[in-house]
Every structure is written in C-alpha cells, then in structure tokens.
C-alpha cells in the first residue's frame, strides 16, 4: 500500500528569499539546514491504521506532505499503490461563490476522480454530507462544520486506497464526527489503509492498529497504541520537567503562590501545601488512562506543631461538579506535624473515571471539618486528564467494572 523507505527531508532556511539567488550565483551557502524528517521507514498495509503522534513541530505534517507527494524527499523513496486521498483543509479547493453542488465536481477532480466517477457518486456524496437543501447554496454561506462535512464526504467517496486523516476531523458536531468515525472504520474493514494524525489520544487508541511517535523528525517509538501513547506522555512529561528544572528554586512554591494571588488559596497557614502533582503509574504523567492507578502527591510543610491535621481532596469535572472527595480523616490516617517538619503524602487510587479533564482541589484542616479550622485551602490546585481506556470501553463519567453472566435460558 504505502512503503516509505528510509526517507529524510531537510529544509533550507533562508533569511531572505533573495539569498537563494545569491547562493546560486555566488556559490557559497547562505542557508541554515533544518532537518524535518530523518530516516523514517515504515510500511502501511491494506486494512491497517497507522497513527502518527508527536509534539508540535515533531515533523508530522512534513511526513504527511511527503507521503501525499506534495513535497519531495531528499533521501529515500515513497512507493504508493493506488490513490491516496487526504482531507483538504477547510476551504482549500472550494470556491466560496459556487454552490456545494458545483464544488463537488472540482474538488472530486482534485482528488483524482474521473467525471464518470463523480457522476456516479454525486448523490451519495450529497446524502452523506447531510447538507440537504443547502447543497444548492454558495459555499460561502456554509458554517465551518458544513464545509467540513462536504469535504469529508467527497474524500471518502473518492474511493482511495489510502486515506490520510488529520486534525481536520475535529470539526463538525458530535453526530457527524461519529458518522465519520464509523465510515472510516468501514473503510478500513473494506481493506483501505489509513494514516491517522491526531492529538486526540482517545481517537488514536480507538482507531489505530499501530502508532509511531515522532520526535525531532525521527521515529522514537513504534508499537501498540497503548504503549505509544504512554511513551508520548512520558516524552511530554520529561519535557516539562526539564523546563521546570531550569527555573528550579522558585518554581517549587510558585504554583501555590500564583494561586494565592488570584484568590484561589486561603487559610491560617500553620501548615501549608507547597507542591503537588498527579503521577499515573503507567503514564508517568498527569494524563491517565481510565482505570489507571495514580498517585496524588502533596508536599506539606508545617511552621508549628499540630495534631490532628486532615488532608482532603475533591476531584471535579470540567463543569465543576464534585465527582469524588476523600481525606485522611475518612481514611483513618490523621496527620501530625512537628514544627518545621516537611512531609510528602501520596493518595493512591485507581482513577475509575470517564475520559475528560478534571481538577483537584486540596485542603489542610482540622479533623473532618474545614469550616472551623482551615490551615490551607487550594482551589483547582491540580489538573489531570483521563484519555483512553485501560480495559473495555464504556460510556459516561464513572468506570464501574461490569461482568456478564447467563442466569437463565439458552447460552447464545
């Protein structure tokens, strides 16, 4: 299907366009070289979905452009069998003044369809796009979601051997995204190959058979989606750690003091939270798979001898709803401090939550009651994300762990 053989791509960066000419005439190099892709080698077979993930600037777009054939490699070769089709970026190739109907012909021709194929597929394209009457109106009157629906519909009906899907799919409402997803799965089941680039780790895990992690133009990891996504998260976490280390002494408490300045933190201050983080046992970062065990770690420091002290947390979802709260009092482990003592506490639990963004509010207070004696209260101290599943898929916010039993009747 797609065979990418040890492909490398360098860009020459010129400060001025005219340097290209001067270089040509003067025969002296006037450019910097940026290695965009180094020695990437992979094969994508029919019916397979290969995911490509990586940070911004890792070379994902360049790799896609090379595979699509819109830029040429410096070394190596790319072999394709059959038509390769990408989702055009919103608006590319659409003439806003023409109707959706009229735009189908040009866009489909761009993707390599013959006039006969266009005539055959036209109705199917219109039906799938769900544009209805709007198909006869100029594309300039379309919302971005409508434009995307038309673009996707044309691309999928172009009947390519390989489909390149990138972030473009993120547009459109949930209904159509799901429709796209099931159509993409159908496409794969019919033997189509897919190259999938996304920052949406859930989608990557759901869709891909294999995932490559790109970093500085090279493949640093290739494996199953779960392994690759974890590798990617660790990569990001390491990067952030490095960034933190550069500004070391101040940063330890800066997170907290920043909150205090914005009024998210208060308390009498005899004992304080001066650092906090979420660490997933597998991911090593604050991005967790649903069901993954994670440590919520809090660094505490007391200025006076205190006993008993309770450390409590509340997890909230993106809408601010209380999802789960616990504290050391409930857990039967009240804390005690000597003056000047510093201690780090981890609350360890399986994060049985559905995918999404969550915040953690933490507090230090007396006994089980933070009204009468509150030492330190930090709203939205931490944030973590649940992405992907470490078991069977489920819908909703809460990961119950079901099992299936036949209680009566014939076994299917």
């Amino acid at each position, binding site marked *: 299907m797609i065979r990418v053989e040890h492909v490398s791509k360098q*860009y020459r960066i010129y400060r001025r366009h005219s340097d290209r000419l001067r270089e040509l005439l003067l025969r002296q190099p006037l450019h910097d070289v940026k290695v965009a892709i180094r020695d990437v080698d992979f094969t994508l077979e029919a019916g397979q979905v290969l995911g490509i993930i990586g940070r911004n600037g890792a070379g994902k777009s360049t790799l896609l452009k090379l595979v699509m054939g819109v830029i040429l490699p410096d070394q190596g070769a790319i072999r394709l069998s059959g038509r390769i089709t990408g989702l055009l970026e919103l608006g590319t190739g659409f003439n806003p003044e023409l109707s959706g109907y009229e735009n189908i012909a040009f866009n489909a021709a761009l993707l390599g369809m013959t006039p006969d194929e266009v005539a055959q597929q036209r109705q199917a394209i219109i039906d799938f796009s769900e544009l209805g009457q709007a198909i006869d109106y100029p594309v300039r009157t379309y919302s971005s979601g409508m434009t995307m629906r038309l673009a996707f519909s044309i691309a999928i009906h172009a009947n390519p051997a390989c489909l390149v899907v990138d972030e473009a799919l993120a547009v459109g409402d949930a209904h159509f995204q799901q429709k796209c997803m099931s159509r993409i799965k159908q496409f794969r089941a019919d033997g189509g190959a897919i190259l999938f680039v996304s920052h949406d780790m859930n989608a990557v895990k759901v869709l891909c058979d294999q995932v490559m992690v790109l970093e500085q133009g090279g493949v640093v990891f290739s494996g199953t989606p779960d392994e690759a996504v974890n590798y990617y998260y660790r990569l990001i976490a390491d990067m952030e750690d490095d960034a933190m280390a550069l500004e070391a002494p101040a940063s330890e408490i800066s997170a907290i003091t920043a909150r205090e300045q914005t009024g998210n933190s208060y308390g009498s201050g005899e004992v304080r939270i001066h650092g906090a983080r979420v660490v997933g046992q597998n991911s090593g970062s604050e991005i967790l798979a649903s069901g993954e065990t994670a440590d919520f770690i809090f660094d505490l420091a007391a200025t006076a001898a205190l006993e008993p002290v309770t450390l409590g947390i509340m997890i909230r979802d993106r809408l601010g709803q209380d999802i789960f709260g616990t504290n050391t009092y409930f857990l039967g482990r009240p804390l005690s401090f000597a003056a000047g003592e510093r201690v780090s506490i981890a609350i360890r639990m399986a994060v049985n939550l559905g995918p999404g963004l969550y915040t953690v509010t933490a507090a230090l207070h007396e006994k089980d009651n933070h009204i009468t004696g509150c030492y330190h209260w930090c709203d939205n101290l931490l944030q973590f994300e649940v992405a992907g599943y470490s078991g069977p898929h489920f819908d909703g916010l809460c990961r119950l762990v079901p099992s299936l039993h036949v209680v009566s009747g014939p076994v299917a």
Partner: protein
Amino acid sequence: MNLALLWHFVKQDFSNRYSGVALGRGWLLITPLLQILIFVVVFGGLIGPRLPETHAGAYGYGIYLVSGVLPWTAFASTISRLTTVFFDKRGILSKVPLSLSMVALHIPLVEAITLAATLALFSLLALAFSVPLHAGFLALPLLILCQQLMAFALGLFGAILMVFLRDIREMVGVVTMLWFWMVPIVYTIDSVPHFMQAIQTYNPAWWFVREYHQIFVYGAAPDLGNIALMLAGGAAASGVMVRLLSYCEHQIRDAL
C-alpha cells in the same frame, strides 16, 4: 493529473472572476466590447491619426490599435499571471499532488479563451466598420496558439525565477510595460526611427502582432511561414521550460 482536471481549473478561473455577479459571464464580453468601441471611436474616429491604405477609412487607426492591444493584453497577462501561478495556487499545491506544469497550463488556456472571445467580437465589429471578410481570419486560432505558446514559455521561466527572487513579480510588470511600447501597437512601424524598425526582427511580440495587423487592418493573409516558425519556436521553448520546471520542482515545492 488529467485533462478533465485541467478543464476544471479553467472553469474555476472564470467562475472565480465572475461568480456572485448578477450578469455573470456577461462581463467577460461587456468590458472588452466597451474597450473596443472606445478605442475604435475615440482614437480612430475622433482624435486618432489617419492610416493610409486601410479599408476601414476614418476608423483605420482604431482598428489598428485594437488588433494589437487585444493580443498583447492576453500575452502580457498570461506571462504575469504565470509568474505567480504556483504561489497563487499554493493552497491546493500544498495539499494535493498535482503536476506543476499542468497547473500552470490553465493560465494560457484561460487567456486564450478570453482572447478568442474578444477577437470574435472584434471581428464582427471590424466587419461592421467595412473591413472585408477574407480567408486570413481562419488563421486567427493558429495565431492565438502561437502567441500563447511563447507566453507559456516566458511565464514559466518567470515562475521558476520567482522561487529565487520575489522581485520578479514587480520586474515582470515593469518589463511588460516597457515591452508594450517597444512593439508597434500604438504607433506604426514606419513612423519610428530605423533602429527601432530593425530590432523588431528580434521582438517575439512583433512577430504575432504583425500578423494580426495583416488580418484586421490590411485585409491580407498572414505569413504562414512566420506562423510555422512561431509554432516551432514556441513549442521548443515551452518544452525546454517544462524540463527546467521539473528540474527545479523540488525547490519550488519547498518554497511554497
């Protein structure tokens, strides 16, 4: 990339210009029609000089002017639009693998169609101004082909240079403006100094403008030998430029 797609590019170009407008493609003919009439009536009938030996009488100069200006406009606009064609189409070229020369080819085609339409209109008017109908008119499609082949070669050269020097866009504007006045379009070849007449032998624009003059102004058949030479030369030059383009394709695509 196939012919169907090339044709789509041509149609797209026209609809880009005239869609969303009430009269639509009507403007394609209304503007040149008005231009032709103004040139013929104002420069020919009212304030223009008299040309000897023409059939159009008082309007002879107007006919002379228009029969040079129309082909020249198509020629110059082909070159200047080709120069920037890859940058103008970068949105598509950076997404869809298309052959560069095929994408470029739609520009001379669009300009050729426009020229053919305006020349057809002009022919009718010329007949109305008592230019006799003769077999030479049949050579018009060939002449259009000649001039657009040459414009294609020159424009592609500009498009390639454009990658190395963005000033080319402005330079093409200046050069075509100067070039316009180097061709006997506004003036006649007899009315300029001898050296100006001599250099016309090497002026590709004069090669084809001269033949349009023959047909429209002097009612004579064009020089078929000259047309054959232009066809051969234009085709050869275009071939060389297409080769040069594929040689530079790597750099052009990187620069987009």
